């Protein structure tokens, strides 16, 4: 698991899946909402991956189903990380006062299952992709604030940070010049983990029927719609499921590389028994 070669090789599918998700809707394929044949037809001419439960082209629906999901997850990660960086550094620099209470509250909120929070927040605006995006952002925010806050708190006792604060520099200035460059690695790794969670949550939201309503394609929803016909026409559910698996495993491996120590320490190898 420590060799770089095979791991990089595993990232190739991730790049391909991402490209397919983003470019998919522009590919010259048949309409994703038009019925072209009988339901659950096996792969054949005109429909390379067969048809779904309503007789629509699985290939076209799969090509259309990834972009919203990926953009939702990316936007939620970017938004959550940006706000998390701001609140986290400020809360980490604060020794007392409301911002330190905020960190404690954030610990509590982060422990509540994310899927439940997404369902409850998105429930108010059914059929809205934006509501899912906001809900996923709100779920990822506490984790970012917690990690960035802890990383910042470790630096606040250092001489140059104390000097800057004592000199009367603004908190934001200190955060930007003295804190940010030193927590960049942790912030990127945390953003990677948030992206994995966001992808899972967005796909699950689609599976549960949140976000844009029925005719719209979404990998999570495609799995749900076609699971019942898996015995007759496995490709309809299998194709979006496989793409989601590749996306999930690829991002996990990438984040693993970002968070792993540069070289395995000798002390990691030990046997007790």
């Amino acid at each position: 698991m420590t060799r770089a070669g095979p791991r990089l090789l595993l990232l190739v599918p991730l790049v391909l899946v991402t490209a397919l998700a983003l470019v998919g809707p522009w590919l010259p394929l048949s309409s994703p909402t038009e019925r072209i044949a009988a339901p659950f037809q096996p792969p054949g001419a005109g429909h390379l991956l067969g048809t779904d439960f309503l007789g629509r082209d699985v290939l076209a629906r799969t090509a259309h189903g990834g972009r919203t999901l990926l953009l939702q997850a990316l936007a939620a990660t970017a938004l959550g990380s940006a706000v998390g960086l701001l609140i986290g550094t400020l809360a980490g620099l604060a020794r007392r006062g409301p911002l330190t209470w905020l960190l404690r509250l954030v610990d509590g909120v982060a422990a509540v299952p994310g899927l439940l929070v997404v369902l409850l927040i998105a429930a108010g605006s059914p059929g809205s992709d934006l509501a899912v995006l906001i809900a996923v952002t709100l779920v990822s925010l506490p984790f970012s604030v917690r990690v960035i806050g802890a990383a910042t708190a470790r630096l606040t006792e250092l001489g140059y940070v104390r000097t800057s604060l004592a000199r009367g520099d603004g908190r934001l200035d200190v955060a930007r010049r003295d804190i940010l460059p030193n927590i960049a690695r942790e912030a990127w790794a945390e953003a990677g983990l948030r992206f994995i969670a966001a992808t899972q949550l967005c796909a699950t939201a689609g599976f549960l029927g949140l976000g844009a309503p029925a005719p719209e394609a979404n990998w999570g929803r495609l799995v749900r719609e076609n699971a019942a016909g898996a015995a007759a026409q496995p490709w309809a559910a299998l194709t979006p499921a496989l793409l989601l698996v590749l996306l999930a495993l690829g991002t996990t491996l990438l984040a693993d590389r970002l968070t792993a120590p540069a070289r395995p320490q000798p002390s990691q190898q030990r046997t007790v028994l």
Partner: protein
Amino acid sequence: MTRFLLARLGTALATMAVLSAALFLATDALPGDAAGAAAGADATAEERAELRERLGLDRPVVERYLAWLGASLTGDLGRSAAAGRPVGEMLASRFGSSVLLVATAVVCIAVAATMLGMPAGLRSGRPVDRLVSSGTVTLLALPEFLLATVLLAVFAHGAGLLPAVSLIPLGDSPWQHPQALVLPVASLFLAGVGIATRLLRAAVATAAESPAVEQARLSGERGLRLAWSYVLPAAAAPAVQGLAVTTAGLLGGSLVVETLFDYPGVGSELARAVAYRDTAVVQGFGLALAGTALLVLLLGDLVSGLLDVRSRSAAVTGGRGERRLR
């Protein structure tokens, strides 16, 4: 210990306040409110205004939130718009099924996580550990709905061994239909076993490096005895906390699993209420699930606080600690 408990209780209550406010704001106060939905598409502006007044929607948000929270806390969760039944009654009839489902999965997870996490933590960095860690990372990376769908496709639609829908006649307990429980429990098990094993492995690996275990090893303790009598007690506190976090996560996962298998629990009803905009049910069931998750986490902290040798009073730990070292 008392101070720690009070602090944790305070955090849990504050979290519950934040969550309930977010839930209320999302379901009740956003545009496209309940009056619009209840009055129908062709209601005139006056009819809507009258309905708003009758439903109390013209009062300030904070006032309505406090009134709702007060009623919820006294057990009045309102009435379902779709079923016409009191939400509290619906919740009571479904809560047991969900508890049974999640508890069965948690017991299986606890056993499996111990059997996988112990050897991995004790031999950290060795092949066993690498194998277990790769397996858990893979499970962690996959959303629970994919795992559940694979089980459904293979065992129900493919092999036809188990029912695809957890049909449980009204009034029966899921216990009386064990074949309906197998796939939902297996799905939740796969969804939680990865994170639980990882947390347990980390706890065991840390415990295995502690001076007490080192001492026991040097005085000749080996194998299962060392693992059972020395490593496990030292790892118990973080392990229990890890199991609590896993359980809380499974409450979220139960939304997906119950919906997929149509299992008659809290999660499937909540997902249905969200789809049909049954606001009272969404609020009541949402509060119940969030409250249960927080309660599980609080219990986990409490038990792990009691198990943690360092937080016990010196009179209790002193003797035991010395005996252990000898």
